[in-house]
Each structure stands twice: as structure tokens, then as C-alpha cells.
């Protein structure tokens, strides 16, 4: 019954974000070197949405990126990577499938819930069911794990891994796993990066609904002004605290992925031989810095240590300015990237 130990020679590199980190690490294993920001840019991961009607734990969802799993999908499509994906109803079957792929000498990416990953710090373990990790080996009942947000690799007991792979909620993780079956090591990254860039520029500047794209930022600014009246100050501050977390907590690389995107623009400038993208990278950096000032003021408000004159209205003013700048930024990027 018990299988031989196996350890795939997998090079772990720490990343800011789980999904882009898994892409970068898996691609390197298969012979294609793509940095994390490049994976993010090619997968056109940057986005913005604020959805008052969609709540998690009673708080409206705000996101600085596209839906979980979609960065990987777009990346694979743009680069021509073929992926095998599977999800399971049966836990034993899911573990058998994992063991089979490991025995072939391949690392396996999978979806887990951070609540059930005992190696993560307690403070970060919420029911968040879209955390990506790579399993690259097995030693008895312990599995070897490359969790992209951690500095080093770690291990997890089989029982714990089963639990993390079969968490319920939004979404059910269903034992989902994936691994590349074909990675074109001579892929045309230029074309892929140009495509990814066009997509972000278009979606950020041109999504019709008010809550999506860079307009979503000014949409939230507008709503923020009414929070205190509508929600009372306690709930209003809970909503604001959640904005900080979505923007800065593990996984965004700072300023809600804006710095990671600036890093992509820098890389893309040389790759595509478009020096003006270096200037765009600096503009994005300046926007990212304003996101950080927003979080800083928000943090003071949440802590009850706001400076005189600072309130949800001044916070909304900041958001309004950021939104207007991002609208200009992405319109311009869309225009010059056709």
C-alpha cells in the first residue's frame, strides 16, 4: 500500500503572490524562465473590482486582481502551455492521482484552503479557499510543499493535506490539482507579454459596469462617503479595514499588485523594446505609492489614531484621485498598445 519516497528536484523561489509564484516556479522546472511579474503581466492579472452585492463574512468584496485561477488560464493560453487539470469527489482518489503524478517525477500544483495549512502563521489562517501550492515529493506520510509565499519549502502531513484540498465554502476546493504536460521552452514571450498587456489596458479602461476596472475605484470612493451614515462607524471601519487587507496582506507584493505590475512594465520595456513602458512603470509606481498612503490613512482611522481633519471623506478623496489617475493611465496604455 505505502509507496516509495519520492523527491522531485524542484527549485523553490519565494514570491509575493501564490498563483503567479506557482506559475513562475512550475515554468522554471519545465525549462521556461518567467519571473513572477512577467507571469502576472502575461496572465493579465491586474484588475479592480468592488462588488457591494457580493459579500464575504458580511463585507463587500473588493479585489485588485482578476478571479483566482484565471491568471494561470490566461498565461497558459498566451504562452501555449498545455495543462492537465483534475478535481475529485473522492479523497483517496485525489491523493492517489497526486501520488501517481509525483511518481512520474513531476511537481503538482493544487488548490488549498489557508485555514487548513498548519505551517502558515495563525493570524493569516482564514477560510480562504483559493491558495495555490506545489507538492513536489513524499516522505512516508509527509508531503513536500513549495508554498510560494514562504521563504523555504516545508512539509505537510497527508491528513492535513487532504483536509486543505477538500475544504468547503466559496469555492469548494474539490481536490483540484494541475500540472503542465507541455511547456514550449522556445515560446514567444514577446507576443505573450504584448497580448497580456493589451488585455489589462483594455479591461481596466473599458469594462462597461461601474464597479469594474479603474472606474470601480471612483465607484467605491463615492460609496465610501456614505459608509458612516449607512453603516454606523463600527461597521464602516470594518469595511475600511477589509480594504487594507485586500490591498496589502500577503500576496499582493504591495499596493494591491500595483508594484508588481510596475515591475512587469519595466521588464516588458526591454523585452518589447518599448522604452516608453519604463516611464509607464514609474507612473504606476507613483500610483502605487498613493495606494499606500491611502492604506496608511485608513489604518490610522481603524486604529482610532487619525490626524485632525482625517475622516472617511478625506479617505474617499484619495480614492477618487487614484481612480482618476488609473483611468487616465490605462486609457493611455490601451491607446499606445494597440
Amino acid at each position, binding site marked *: 500500500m505505502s509507496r516509495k519516497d519520492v523527491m522531485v528536484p524542484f527549485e523553490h523561489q519565494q514570491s509575493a503572490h501564490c498563483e503567479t509564484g506557482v506559475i513562475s516556479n512550475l515554468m522554471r522546472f519545465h525549462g521556461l524562465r518567467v519571473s513572477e511579474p512577467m507571469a502576472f503581466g502575461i496572465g493579465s492579472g491586474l484588475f479592480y473590482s468592488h462588488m457591494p452585492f457580493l459579500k464575504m463574512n458580511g463585507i463587500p468584496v473588493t479585489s485588485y486582481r482578476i478571479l483566482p485561477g484565471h491568471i494561470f488560464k490566461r498565461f497558459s493560453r498566451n504562452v501555449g502551455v498545455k495543462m492537465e487539470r483534475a478535481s475529485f469527489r473522492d479523497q483517496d482518489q485525489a491523493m492517489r492521482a497526486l501520488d501517481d503524478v509525483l511518481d512520474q517525477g513531476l511537481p503538482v500544483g493544487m488548490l488549498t484552503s489557508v485555514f487548513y495549512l498548519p505551517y502558515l502563521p495563525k493570524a493569516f489562517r482564514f477560510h480562504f479557499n483559493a491558495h495555490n501550492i506545489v507538492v513536489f515529493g513524499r516522505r512516508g506520510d509527509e508531503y513536500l510543499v513549495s508554498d510560494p509565499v514562504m521563504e523555504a519549502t516545508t512539509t505537510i502531513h497527508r491528513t492535513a493535506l487532504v483536509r486543505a484540498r477538500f475544504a468547503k465554502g466559496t469555492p469548494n476546493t474539490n481536490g483540484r490539482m494541475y500540472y503542465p504536460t507541455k511547456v514550449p521552452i522556445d515560446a514567444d514571450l514577446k507576443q505573450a507579454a504584448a497580448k497580456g498587456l493589451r488585455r489589462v489596458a483594455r479591461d481596466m479602461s473599458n469594462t462597461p459596469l461601474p464597479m469594474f476596472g479603474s472606474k470601480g475605484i471612483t465607484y467605491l470612493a463615492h460609496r465610501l462617503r456614505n459608509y458612516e451614515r449607512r453603516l454606523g462607524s463600527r461597521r464602516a471601519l470594518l469595511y475600511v479595514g477589509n480594504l487594507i487587507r485586500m490591498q496589502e496582506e500577503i500576496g499582493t507584493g504591495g499596493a494591491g499588485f500595483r508594484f508588481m505590475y510596475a515591475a512587469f512594465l519595466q521588464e516588458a520595456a526591454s523585452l518589447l523594446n518599448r522604452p516608453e513602458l519604463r516611464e509607464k512603470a514609474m507612473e504606476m509606481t507613483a500610483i502605487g505609492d498613493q495606494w499606500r498612503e491611502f492604506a496608511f490613512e485608513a*489604518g490610522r482611522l481603524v486604529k482610532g489614531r487619525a490626524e485632525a481633519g482625517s475622516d472617511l471623506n478625506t479617505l474617499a478623496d484619495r480614492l477618487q484621485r487614484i481612480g482618476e489617475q488609473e483611468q487616465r493611465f490605462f486609457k493611455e496604455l490601451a491607446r499606445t498598445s494597440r
Partner: protein
Amino acid sequence: MKKEEVPQDDANMLEGKFKVVKYALNEDGEYEKVPSVGWEPENVALQQAWSVINEQVAEARRKVEAGQCSTLAYHMEVNMMDPALLSKHAGVPARSVKRHLEPAEFAALDERTLQRYAEALQLTVAELKQLPA
């Protein structure tokens, strides 16, 4: 954000287990990965989220002690679940879960259902029936 501006506000959120990565500009104006132990606004927002959870757990404990709720209600809060999520994890219909939050209903549960709850909440049946000290 410049490399030297990457915040290092340690509130022990990461328990010293690792540092997280931020992207920042180095001396040559190039982006690179820079480790960080945390940032004050992040820490504040996390603490805020935890204080809400801790309040809910304390409230559940008070209700159990007052005989208004079963111990299941307490363990559900500790696991940051609501009846809907617990229902999915335990495979017990959500309406039944709500009923089992009442002491009398919970006391009448059969071993099999207790086992399901215990498994879902990572407890033994004996632990499930008690409040921890």
C-alpha cells in the same frame, strides 16, 4: 516604493516563520523582491479582523455557559464557521445545524451525527461536548 521604504513593522503576525515579499525599486531604479516583516496598517487591519472573531467566540462561550446555546455553537465560532459552512463540512443539513445549536437538541444527538461534527471541527466527540477551560 523604494527598497529602503519597504516597511518593517513587526507585530509578530508571521510568528517569525518567514518574511513576505514586496516589490520595490533598488538603487538603480529597477524593481526587485524585498523581504518585509509587516506593515502597521496591515497589522491594524488584521488585528481588527481577529478582534471581531474573538468577540464572537467570547459571546458564544457566554451563551453556552448561560445555557442558551449548545457547545456546538462555541466550537463553530472557534472554527470561524457559520451554520451554512459547518453544514457543508459536516454533511448535516443547514437547518439541522441551526437546531443543534440549541442545548436540548444537541443533547439528544446520536453518536453518528456527533462524530460528523467532531470530524468537521477537528475535535474528538468528548471535546465537542465541552467548553475548553
